[in-house]
């Protein structure tokens, strides 16, 4: 089953999804247990700490949500590109460029009388920045014939370089330039937040909106239908009067736009400055979230939440169990491998028994 073949979820498909998700989870747990055992950590304790470290208190939950927001935004964006059959690896760089454009806008608002205006403007600028960055990769693909994966990876490097240059060059802190980023913005340029949790409701609202818009776009809009059709057979779509390359660029812009907003939230809602690691690999992680969600928009928020919990919960794990701090990374790696293994298995199975997979739909 290719990406474009996923139709809206019917009961049978939902069941299938639950089954496959359960399978992935089992593989993930088995794999991590193995890793933990090898590392000499008691697995049950480890799982307990992950749970406690992510959902153990309101503050922890708010940390999880702060990770959930960019993951969900990027996930929503990636649904457009996956729909048309593009691998938008460049999403990471698109988050970064969103952050850069947001920072630029906020800097312009530093001494302004209306900081809220600049705050609002920063979102538009970030969406534009991410979108344009994605568009470059899109043009490289449609005009230059460069595979979008390589184009995206290249653009990610460029974006990272640009951020470092900005932090150590034009935007460096007065006196010292350091990896800790640019000068912190005054509070007036921060996204309003609930002070006890340091969590901004606007960010959550944005992520939820992104999911809703994407669901509506993919299911009910003509654009959504065209993306799916071109993803299925771009040659035939010419016969239907569509121009595949236009839609590819459009999908890239959607993905880049959502990623840019995620980047903006990292700046104005979380760190209040530009950091070298501003994108925190959320773009790459979102690729896995979407794959694991079987490209289903309604599942993405839940899988994103799961990944966010793991991400936040495993930070403290090494400390609690007195293990090397690289363990968190190893667990994430295990997760990635398990996801890939299951989706590869799924793809192979689908290919061998392609006819069978249609049965559920045919009823």
């Amino acid at each position, binding site marked *: 089953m*290719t990406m*474009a*073949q996923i*139709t809206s979820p019917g009961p049978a498909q939902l069941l299938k999804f639950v089954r496959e998700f359960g399978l992935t989870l089992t593989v993930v747990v088995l794999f991590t247990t193995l890793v933990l055992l090898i590392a000499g950590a008691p697995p049950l304790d480890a799982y307990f700490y992950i749970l406690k470290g992510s959902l153990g208190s309101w503050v922890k939950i708010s940390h999880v949500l702060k990770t959930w927001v960019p993951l969900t935004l990027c996930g929503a964006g990636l649904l457009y590109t996956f729909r048309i059959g593009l691998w938008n690896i460049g999403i990471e760089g698109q988050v970064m460029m969103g952050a850069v454009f947001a920072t630029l806008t906020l800097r312009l608002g530093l001494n302004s009388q209306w900081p809220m205006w600049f705050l609002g403007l920063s979102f538009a600028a970030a969406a534009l920045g991410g979108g344009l960055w994605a568009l470059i990769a899109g043009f490289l693909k449609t005009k230059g014939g460069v595979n979008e994966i390589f184009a995206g990876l290249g653009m990610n490097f460029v974006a990272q370089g640009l951020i470092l240059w900005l932090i150590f060059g034009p935007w460096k802190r007065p006196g010292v330039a350091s990896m800790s980023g640019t000068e912190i913005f005054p509070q007036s340029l921060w996204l309003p937040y609930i002070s006890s949790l340091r969590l901004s409701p606007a960010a959550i609202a944005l992520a939820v909106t992104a999911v809703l818009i994407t669901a509506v776009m993919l299911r*009910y*809009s*003509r*654009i*959504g*239908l*065209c993306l*799916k*059709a071109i*993803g*299925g*057979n771009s*040659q*035939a*779509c*010419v*016969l*239907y*009067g*569509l*121009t595949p390359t236009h839609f590819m660029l459009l999908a890239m812009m959607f993905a880049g736009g959502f990623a840019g907003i995620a980047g903006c939230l990292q700046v104005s809602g979380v760190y209040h400055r530009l950091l070298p690691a501003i994108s925190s690999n959320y773009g790459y992680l979102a690729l896995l979230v979407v794959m694991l969600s079987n490209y289903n928009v309604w599942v993405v928020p839940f899988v994103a939440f799961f990944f966010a919990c793991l991400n936040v919960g495993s930070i403290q794990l090494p400390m609690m169990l007195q293990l090397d701090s690289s363990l968190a990374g190893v667990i994430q790696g295990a997760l990635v491998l398990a996801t890939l293994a299951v989706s590869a298995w799924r793809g192979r199975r689908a290919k*061998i*028994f*392609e*006819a*069978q997979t*249609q*049965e*559920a*739909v*045919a*009823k």
Partner: protein
Amino acid sequence: MRVELENIHKHYGSVRANDGVDLSVQGGEIHGILGENGAGKSTLMKVLSGYIRKTAGTITVDGRQVEFRSPGKASECGIGMLYQDPLDFLNLSVLDNFMLGQVSGLKNEREYYRRKLLPLSTHFNFNLDPNSPVSRLTIGERQQLEILRLLSIGIKVLILDEPTTGISEIQKQTLFAALKQLAREGKSVLLISHKLEDTQVLCNRVTVLRRGKVTGHMEAPFDTRQLLDQMFDQLPTPPSRLKASPGDTILSMSDVVSTGGRTGLQKCNILVRKGEVVGLAGLEGSGQGVFLRVASGMSRPKSGIVEVDGRSMIGKSHREFKDAGVTFVPTSRLEEGLVPGLDITEHFALNARKTRFFVRWSNALSAAKEKIEMFRISGRPRSPVQSLSGGNQQRLLLSFLPEAPRLLLLENPTRGLDVESAHWVWRHLQTYTARNTSIVFSSAELDEIVMVADRILVFFDGKIVKDVRAEDTDSRELGRAIAGEI
């Protein structure tokens, strides 16, 4: 070798593609499988070749019950199927493709296989050059290659699904001779075909399917009348040529040169008038496909002038041709015409007005229902197009035709259709010509062209070598032109 299928069921949800089919094949037998579109022929053969798994039933080979979980398992038991589009590796040579699936890869065995391929090829009178890349072969030659490969891995029961579509008359004769040769050597052949004449000359026995059930077994010689009764509810009535009174020019080409296909298109000069039905005859790939693609804006000519309704269309996209009233229906349905993964309703939504932001799903659904009914497509609004039988995919494509096109360009419009459907399609298309639409169609069946066309163009090697009115010619003359003997 003796293969027996007993009470085979293959269900897709509530669709019973095969509903209790019994069939047995002996060594040395050529067994025909007949039936209308969607009867379940391909499904049955895919079950036998391990490509899909049956819902219920038993398969026995020489009295031993077997269970095929993959095509590989079936070929280990000596059963192999030739698919309509053999999945060759186009960049590899004939020899490489022949060796696929046979070599261990440990040592270089090319010489061994070359020595194996050549005599096998001459044995069946095939003409294959081991060194030429597969991408340069015609469909018929690729088919020959695949047959040789299947035989050399030890296939004793050979299954062919509509093998004569897209191959030339000569290749067809060669194929038939080869199949007879195989039968003489004790192998069995299972042949799906829509052509009663072919079954008549080739098969010892036939089995007729209808809606997933067997409606008859018969031994040669066959009573055609009875076979038709077993295949169809109503007997097909052939369409007849309409007396057209052509009007003004709708399409004109002057000195058009184009690349593409095997031969390209050379110096093409042609006028098509309103209300005319023009049949394009010629060996597969002699330029008809390129002609239709240039005339529809799907590909751009290297030089020359294309005009629709007196307006120059040079440099225009297919979309602009469409806006000018030109509709093109390609022959390869799942590659060029339909989008696998989308269902019937989604295709109608894609065809609907393009200016709206939101899709009118209810409109698309009712359009789908209406056309399914009207074109008697066996499928549901929510069936993914790849689950439709070959003939039903073709009907679906034809159901997309707009209300009032000015020029219809149809590539093999009845390929894969059963006799009854083919006739039905033509009667339907003739309602368009009555409304002054011009039709230009290609076909591998000379009979079909002679039956419905007002005017016939014969293509040879990328050139139009003959342009005659249908009443001024006959099959013999046309046959010579097709072979290039002018």
